[in-house]
C-alpha cells in the first residue's frame, strides 16, 4: 500500500475560538506521525475532521490524489480511515465478538475467522466470548484496534492511546503500531507525551492554540525543543523584578502529599512538598494532565488530605473544605471558569456570593442578604474594571476576560494572604491577560502570596519568584526565577533531569 493523505488549508472555527487555523499537513504511509500539542491546541478537532466527526469550515482533504468529503464517520470508514478514540466506544455488557459484529459490515461466519486471523497475525490474545467489562484497559483498546483492522484501513488514527495504559501495555501497543506501519498502514498518533513521540514516531507536527507550529523529523528534535514548541516560548518577556527584601516569613508549608485515584483519567500525586513565603509567587509549570488539577483540588480543599500536610500560618488546614480554608484567608481561582469558578446561568451577584466568609455576612441567620451582596458585587465590578455595572446581569453575557476579572476580583476583594490560581489567563485576549498579570504582581507587592499553577511558560517566567515543574504527579526541585530558563523547564516538563 502506498497511502498519501493531505490536508490543505483546513480551518474550523467554533464560537469564540479558532480550533484549527489554516492547517496544511501531509502524511505518507510507512511512517508514524505524531501530532503533538497541549489540551486545547486543536489536535483533537483536527483528528475529528479526519474521522468525519467534525466538518471543517474550509479546506480540503486529499487521499491518494483524490479529494474526499468526510461528512460522517461512515464516510471516513468508507475511505479506509480508522480511528481509536481516547475514551472507548464499547458496550461493556456485550461480549467482545458482539461488539465487533456491530457495524462490521461482514457476515458473522466470515467475521470470526477474520478476527482470529488478525489476532494471530499481531499476537493479540483476547477471549472473544467474554463481556467487555472483564477486559483490562489495554485489551479494550485492542478490541477497538481490531474493529478498525477488520476494515483493512489505510490510515489509523490513535487519539491519546496511552493515557489509560500501563507501561507494559504501552510497549505492546508500540510494537503493534510499528508492525502496522511496516505493513503500509499510515499511522497518526496524537499525544502530549514527549517521550512517546521520541521513541515511537518518525515525524512530528506540533500544534499550539489552533495553529500548526512546526513539522519536523524526530531525528532533528530533542525533548526540550519539542516542549518549547508546544507551550510557546518568548524569551523577550519582561520578568517581574524579583523582590529585593526576600522575606523568609513562611506562609504555607505543604508536606508529604500523596494522592491516589481510582479513576484512570486522573493523575496520582507523589510526595509533594513545598513552602511559600509571604510576598512570593510560587509557579508550578508542566504540561497539562500531569497532576495540576489534582494538586489544585488538594490545595483548595475540594480533595481533603491529612490535617498536618498543609500548614498555613502555623494552622493545620489539610482536612478543611474550601469554605473553611477561606476563613484562614486563602482564595482560589480554578481553571474552569464556566463550570466551576462561576455558574454562567446565575446572575453576577449570585456568583459573587459563592465566595462567602463569615465576616462578609452575605447570609444572615440563613437568610440571603441580597442588598449586601449587591453592594459588595458593585464594588468588585468597579475595582476590577469589569465592563458592566449591572449586578443583575447573567454571568454568561460576560466575555471570558471579564468573567475572569469578576472571579479574580471576587477572590481578591477580601484581601486574602494566599491566592491559588490555575491557568488564570487561559483562553483570554492580550488585554485581559495583561490586566490579570498586573493584578497578580500587585498583590505580591502587598506582601501577599500566590501559588500559580500554569501550563503557560511565559506567564510563569513573568510572574514567579520560584518555579517547580510537575511531571507525572511529581514536583521537580525548586528553582529560583533568576536561574530558570525555558530550556531547563522544557527538559523537566518532558520528564528529563537537570543538575
Amino acid at each position: 500500500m502506498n497511502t498519501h493523505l493531505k490536508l490543505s488549508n483546513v480551518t474550523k472555527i467554533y464560537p469564540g475560538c479558532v480550533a484549527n487555523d489554516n492547517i496544511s499537513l501531509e502524511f505518507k504511509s510507512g511512517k508514524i506521525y505524531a501530532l503533538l500539542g497541549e489540551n486545547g491546541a486543536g489536535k483533537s478537532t483536527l483528528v475529528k475532521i479526519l474521522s468525519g466527526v467534525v466538518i471543517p469550515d474550509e479546506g480540503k482533504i486529499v487521499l491518494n490524489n483524490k479529494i474526499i468529503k468526510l461528512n460522517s464517520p461512515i464516510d471516513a470508514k468508507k475511505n479506509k480511515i480508522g480511528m481509536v478514540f481516547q475514551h472507548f466506544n464499547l458496550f461493556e455488557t456485550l461480549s467482545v465478538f458482539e461488539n465487533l459484529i456491530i457495524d462490521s459490515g461482514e457476515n458473522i461466519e466470515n467475521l470470526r475467522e477474520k478476527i482470529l486471523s488478525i489476532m494471530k497475525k499481531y499476537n493479540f490474545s483476547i477471549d472473544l466470548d467474554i463481556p467487555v467489562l472483564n477486559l483490562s484497559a489495554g485489551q479494550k483498546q485492542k478490541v477497538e484496534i481490531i474493529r478498525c483492522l477488520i476494515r483493512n484501513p489505510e490510515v489509523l488514527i490513535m487519539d491519546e492511546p496511552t493515557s489509560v495504559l500501563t507501561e507494559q501495555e504501552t510497549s505492546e501497543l508500540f510494537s503493534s503500531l510499528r508492525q502496522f506501519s511496516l505493513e503500509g498502514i499510515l499511522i497518526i498518533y496524537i499525544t502530549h507525551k514527549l517521550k512517546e513521540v521520541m521513541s515511537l514516531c518518525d515525524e512530528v507536527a506540533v500544534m499550539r492554540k489552533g495553529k500548526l507550529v512546526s513539522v519536523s523529523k524526530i531525528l532533528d528534535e530533542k525533548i526540550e525543543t519539542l516542549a518549547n514548541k508546544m507551550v510557546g516560548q518568548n524569551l523577550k518577556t519582561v520578568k517581574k523584578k524579583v523582590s529585593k527584601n526576600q522575606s523568609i516569613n513562611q506562609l504555607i508549608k505543604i508536606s508529604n502529599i500523596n494522592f491516589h485515584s481510582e479513576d484512570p483519567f486522573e493523575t496520582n500525586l507523589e510526595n509533594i512538598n513545598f513552602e511559600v513565603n509571604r510576598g512570593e509567587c510560587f509557579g508550578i509549570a508542566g504540561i497539562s494532565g500531569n497532576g495540576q488539577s489534582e494538586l489544585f483540588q488538594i490545595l483548595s480543599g475540594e480533595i481533603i488530605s491529612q490535617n498536618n500536610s498543609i500548614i498555613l500560618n502555623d494552622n493545620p488546614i489539610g482536612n478543611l473544605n474550601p469554605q473553611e480554608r477561606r476563613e484562614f484567608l486563602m482564595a482560589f481561582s480554578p481553571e474552569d471558569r464556566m463550570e466551576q469558578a462561576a455558574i454562567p446561568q446565575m446572575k453576577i451577584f449570585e456568583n459573587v456570593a459563592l465566595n462567602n466568609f463569615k465576616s462578609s455576612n452575605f447570609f444572615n441567620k440563613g437568610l440571603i442578604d441580597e442588598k449586601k451582596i449587591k453592594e459588595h458585587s458593585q464594588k468588585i465590578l468597579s475595582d476590577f474594571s469589569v465592563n458592566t455595572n449591572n449586578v443583575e446581569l447573567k454571568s454568561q453575557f460576560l466575555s471570558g476576560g471579564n468573567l475572569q476579572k469578576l472571579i479574580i476580583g471576587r477572590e481578591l476583594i477580601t484581601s486574602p494572604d494566599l491566592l491559588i490560581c490555575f491557568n488564570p489567563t487561559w483562553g483570554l485576549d492580550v488585554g485581559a491577560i495583561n490586566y490579570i498579570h498586573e493584578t497578580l504582581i500587585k498583590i505580591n507587592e502587598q506582601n501577599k502570596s500566590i501559588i500559580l499553577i500554569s501550563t503557560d511558560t511565559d506567564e510563569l517566567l513573568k510572574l514567579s519568584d520560584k518555579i517547580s515543574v510537575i511531571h507525572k504527579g511529581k514536583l521537580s526541585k525548586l528553582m529560583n526565577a533568576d536561574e530558570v530558563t525555558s530550556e531547563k523547564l522544557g527538559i523537566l516538563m518532558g520528564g528529563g533531569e537537570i543538575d
Partner: protein
Amino acid sequence: MPMKLLLKNLEYLWEEEKLIKIVKRDQPSRAIFFLTPILAIFLTLVAGGLIFFILGFKPFEALKFFFIVPIADMYGFSELLLKATPLCLIAIGLSFCFKSNNWNIGAEGQLTFGAIVSGGVALLFYNQEGFYILPIVILAGAIGGMLYASIPAILKTYFNTNEILVSLMLVYVSKLILDYLVVGPWSNPEGFNFPETRQFSDSARLPILFDGLRIHAGIFLALASVIISWFIFYKTYLGFQMKVSGFSLKTAKYAGYKGKKMIILVFLISGACAGLAGVGEITGPIGQLHREVSPDYGFTAIIVAFLGRLHPVGIIFASLVVAITYLGAETAQIFMQIPKYTGQVFQGMILFFLLASDYLLFFKIKFIGAKK
C-alpha cells in the same frame, strides 16, 4: 438487520456534529420556560384526542368527558382539590431533591411508610378521643416519611449507591410491609379477614371542610408547603446552595458547601412531604389502613414537579392539571367504558411531551444536509 440500522443512526446523533446538527441555545427565554408546559399539555390533548379517535370515539366529546365533565360541579371540584393535595405536597418535597441534583424516585414508598407509621399511631388511639391525637398522628407520618427517605440518602452519601435505584426499590418494600400489616398483625379483629385495619377514631381524622364534600384540612398542609418552600428556595442560604448544586456540583464543591449534609437534608424534607401526603390520605378520605392507600401519587408527583418547573406556584397549577387525569379516567370508565388506566396514559404523555418540548427549549436543530 434493524438493530444495525439503529446503531448507525445513533452514531449520527452521538457526536456533536452530524447530518442533523444540534446546537445549544445561548439563552432559553424565561417566557418559553413557563410556556413549554402549556405546549406540552396542548400536545397531550391533541394526542389524546387522536387516541380516542382511533379507539372509535368522537375526540372532542371524549376529551370533554375526560377533562370538563369531572369538574363541572362543586363535588367534582372538591374531588379535584382532594387529588391535587397529595400531588402538590409530594411534588413540593421532590422539588427540593430535584433542584439540588438528587434523584428521589421513591416518594411513593415514603408516602406508604409515612401512612404506615401514622396509621400505627392512629390505631393505638382507636378507641380514644382528644385534640392531641391528630397532631401526634400527623407528626408520626412526617417522621415515617423522613425515616424512609433517609435510607437512600445515607446509602448515597456514605456508600456511594445510586439513589434512583435504592429509593425506587424501597417503594416495593414499603408496599409489602403495608400488605403484611393489614393482612396480619394490624388487621381488624372484627373485620372478617378483610385486608384492612380498624377505622381510626374521629380525633385522628383530618377535619372535612364542607359538609357532603370530601375535601379535607390536608389542603392547608399543601398550601403551607408551597409558601415555606418558596421562602426556602428564594430567600435562604439553603435554597442558594441547592441552586448552585443543581447547576454544578463542581461549583458547589469549590464553594465548600457541605454536600453530604445537604443531600440528607433534601431527602428528609422530601420524605416528610411524602409522609404528610400519606397521612392526608389515610386520615382524610380513607380513615383506615388498607392495601391501596395511594393510586401512585408518589410517582405521578414526579411529573407534577417537572410540569410545574420545580417552582412552587407552577407546582400548584401542575397538580391541578394532573389531578384531572385521575378524575377524567374515572368518568371515562363510567361513561365510555374506557379502562381507567387511560389516566396513566395521559400522565405519561404529559411528561413525554414536556421533555420533548424542553429539548427544543435548550437546543436548536439545524439540518446540515440543507446547506449543500
